[in-house]
């Protein structure tokens, strides 16, 4: 199935083909970095994809907070002047750490790793991953505007009925 991306406002919705390439890049990062979780998301708080041990992690809440974290630190960068945004944000805990970095202007990469993993290695591997992901985003921008037909009429109609039944409609 060949899909392309579509525009939703200014945001790109990834095609299935591109999506699977991203999944592979993240899986490689997870394996090579020995991290717990790798997440690629957009700055609007949408998790694009993620891998690792996410059973005990609410990935949607984590993504929303990561996007909020970026918007707050971007404001801090503007306040001190000379910076548009910081390239990465690092949160160090007693047993676990989070490394966050931007991928172009619209996306972010989040890595959760434990204290046994060296930050230097995470930085190097994250940088390589950013380069690969950035190339995909550029590629995507050149693609056509065909709609990703995830939502068909049947899905729309069944979801409409589910909404009514869940939220008290007719």
């Amino acid at each position, binding site marked *: 199935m060949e899909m392309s991306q579509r525009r*939703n*406002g*200014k*945001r790109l*919705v*990834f095609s*299935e083909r591109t*999506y*699977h390439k991203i*999944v592979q890049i993240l899986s490689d990062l997870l394996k090579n970095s020995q991290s717990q979780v790798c997440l690629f998301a*957009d*700055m*609007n*708080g*949408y*998790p*694009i*994809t993620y891998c690792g041990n996410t059973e005990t992690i*609410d990935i*949607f*809440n984590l993504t*929303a*907070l990561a*996007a*909020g974290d970026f*918007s*707050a630190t*971007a*404001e801090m960068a503007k306040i001190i002047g000379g910076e548009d945004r910081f390239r990465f944000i690092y949160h160090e805990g007693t047993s676990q750490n989070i490394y966050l970095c931007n991928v172009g202007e619209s996306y972010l990469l989040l890595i959760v790793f434990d204290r046994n993993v060296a930050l230097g290695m995470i930085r190097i591997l994250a940088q390589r991953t950013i380069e690969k992901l950035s190339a995909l985003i550029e590629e995507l921008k050149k693609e056509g505007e065909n709609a*990703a037909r*995830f*939502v068909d009429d*049947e*899905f*729309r109609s*069944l*979801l*409409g009925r*589910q*909404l*009514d039944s*869940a*939220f*008290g*409609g007719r």
Partner: protein
Amino acid sequence: MHVDWLRQEIIFKIVYYGPGLGGKTSNLEYIHAHLDPTMRGELVTLKTKEERTLYFDFLQVELGRINGKKPRFHLYTIPGQIHYGFSRKILLKGADAVVFVADSQRGRMDENLSTLADLEKKLIRQEQTLGTMPWVLQYNKRDLPDVERLSFLQSKLNFLDVPYHEAVAVKGIGVFETLRSTMHLVLAKV
């Protein structure tokens, strides 16, 4: 809207917008408290010491799989306070629909109008308008003694004839109705 092809999920983003202390967070709190826990995530709230929303509140609502595909709705509130404007700008990006929570109390019309104008301004920056973005009006705090008449609120705020609901968010009146009609608008636009 975002499609997760691997997990066969589709995510929509709904943003609650409106003047400060208008009841946006109350909407999410009610949904969180009264929706079946299997249908929602934990409510994330980032508040100041004074219980005002600092960055945003966030709640995920999910529905059952349809032909193997799972729909999720991400609900965000945007801080009403003008000095947190940067959060408003960021969070509105990628929204599939907006709920405008207006304060029905007499004397709050200027704030309702200026916040609506601010919403339009931010939409224009992302190449949208109130005419192109699906949105729903919620007239909140209808139980308070000194509120404007519905016809007055309609004439001032609903110039585009969008769906509207009267509500008392803290008691849950109109909360699910607002959410449902917003979700239907999202669906119609996909």
